[in-house]
């Protein structure tokens, strides 16, 4: 499980540089302004998690960073150039996205779905090469899906299916991965399994940007947290500086105690609730 397959140029020089950033972006959705004049830098090599209450614009920010949404003002910058100046397949070789919802084509097997991740490298003349085969193989190894590679996607459990979608993104071999609520609808064991996988991928050098609902997961797995509220960034930095009683109350309006996680020694949020 220690094969490094992404186009990683350098080992992480933590938080010094940024390959992906949003510069003064204004994001509208159906004429409604979600974020205005928002600037965010994703530290290279980081495991960045965007947190915030429902409808705070965190998924919108992720969609903007991954070029799914076009900001009405400002721009997203990838490796020093505006992201719109790239060809769409070029972007797809640098940024991989795990969308909130995807649909598997009818009657497709696991390996064939994972193979879709190779699209940015293919053409009509070169529909399937040895590199494609190797990338699919390694993506399935990393996600532990080799054993089920021949099965139909419709007959898998939710946890297996999500790992297959992750394998598809990994087959894309991008140095930056964007994950939109990757653990939603999974049980706790599968959530942790997936987050551990992302942490491994991050330790191997990939930059990971995820939207997560669970603050404790964010605090435990991220090394950079962006806290958002009403479309604006309230705070960003190391989980130990961000996940505090004051900031949690400011961002979520939740009174809580933050204690030391006895296992990982990261902040652990314990909501106060009503005293009965």
């Amino acid at each position, binding site marked *: 499980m220690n094969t490094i397959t992404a186009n990683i140029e350098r080992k992480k020089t933590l938080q010094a540089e940024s390959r992906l950033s949003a510069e003064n972006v204004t994001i509208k959705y159906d004429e409604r302004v979600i974020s205005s004049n928002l600037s965010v830098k994703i530290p290279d090599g980081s495991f960045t998690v965007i947190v915030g209450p429902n409808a705070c614009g965190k998924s919108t920010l992720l*969609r903007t960073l*991954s*070029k*799914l949404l076009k900001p009405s003002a400002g721009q997203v910058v990838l490796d020093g150039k505006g992201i719109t100046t790239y*060809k*769409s*397949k*070029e*972007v*797809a*070789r640098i*940024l*991989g*996205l795990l*969308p*909130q*919802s*995807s*649909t*598997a*084509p*009818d*009657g*497709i*097997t*696991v*390996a*064939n779905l994972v193979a*879709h*991740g190779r*699209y*940015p490298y*293919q053409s*009509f*003349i*070169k*529909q*399937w*090469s040895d590199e494609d*085969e*190797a990338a*699919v*193989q390694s993506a*399935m190894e990393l996600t532990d899906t*080799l054993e089920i*590679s*021949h*099965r*139909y996607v419709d007959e898998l459990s939710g946890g297996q299916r999500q790992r297959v979608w992750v394998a*598809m993104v990994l087959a*894309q071999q991008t140095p930056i991965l964007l994950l939109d609520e990757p653990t939603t609808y999974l049980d706790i064991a599968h959530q942790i399994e997936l987050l551990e996988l992302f942490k491994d991928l991050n330790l191997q050098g990939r930059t990971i940007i995820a939207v997560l609902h669970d603050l404790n997961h964010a605090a435990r797995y991220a090394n950079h947290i962006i806290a958002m509220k009403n479309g604006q960034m309230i705070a960003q930095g190391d989980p130990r500086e961000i996940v505090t009683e004051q900031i949690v109350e400011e961002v979520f309006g939740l009174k809580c105690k933050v204690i030391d996680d006895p296992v990982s020694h990261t902040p652990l949020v314990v909501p106060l609730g009503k005293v009965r």
Partner: protein
Amino acid sequence: MPRIQFGRRYIRLKWPIQMRIDVKNLTVTAILAGAILVLALYGLMAGTMQLSLKDLWQVFSGEAAKMTSTIVINWRLPRIIAAVVFGAGLAVSGAVFQSLTRNPLGSPDIVGFTSGSYTGALIVILISKSASFLGIAAGALIGGFTTAILIYLLAFRKGTQGFRLIIVGIAVSTILSSLNSMLLLRSKAEVALTAAAWGVGSLNGISWDQATPAMLIVVVLLIFAAVMNRPLREMELGGDAAKSHGIRIEPTQLVLILIAVVLTAAPTAVMGPVSFVALAAPQIVFRLTKSAQSFAPAAAMGALLLLGADIVAQRIISGTILPVGVVTLSLGGCYLVWVLFRQARSAM
């Protein structure tokens, strides 16, 4: 490195295109192609003038009598080739629409393009009071395209929603059908007769001159469709995933719709509306191959269906040649009931 278990068998091709060929798709396509060949030979031999294989051989080597030659080369052959090419075109058109709408009912005959073609043809017949082949074909083409544009504008707001396209298409189709009835009722009896005859698609009396331009268009667009197949399959993953793989959704969708519309409009302009083939061929093939990733088996199935239906139409009542549209319409009715029944049952 151990080979990946894809769950399906593939042949790796290194030249001229680096690709994987699905063995099951290949087998099904080959079997269908064999059946087409057999039916085509039967179609060339059978008829009022019965010919043997030897007679056919003589025709193609130029040793046969002039009359026999004319019957085979000018009467029977264009009809068979047209059935094969148009059947393939209709089937691929259906496959594209069904993939874009992700619904087995999303086919050009259901969503109203064929009704639009009929409206166009009707208007030409009624206005010019004659039935020149070219005029009707042009009317059908324009009618089909206008309908397609109308449905596109009505249905494709803020990205595709397959279901929306189908609902809008069925509505437009119904409106056009009543318009067609109104036009027919208001016209003189003999004109209405010509128009109604065109309305049930037919290959009767088709000649090389009439069929060749449309066949060329269909063949060229089948090649375009083959090139656009991979982006189409990416879009089946959903808009976000497709975009993140580098697909530009709107232009890709537009090109695919254009290909599918022409693949229906060109055959319809020549034959008149022939239903069922576009709707059913991709679905029947899916049952056989358990995969909808390639156009080739669907095209072969469409060709076989139209050719088979046309031969049935010529033979089922001795002495009378039915329009092929009647046969496909009856088949289509049964098929539609079956699909709706299945969908209703799986929804419960």
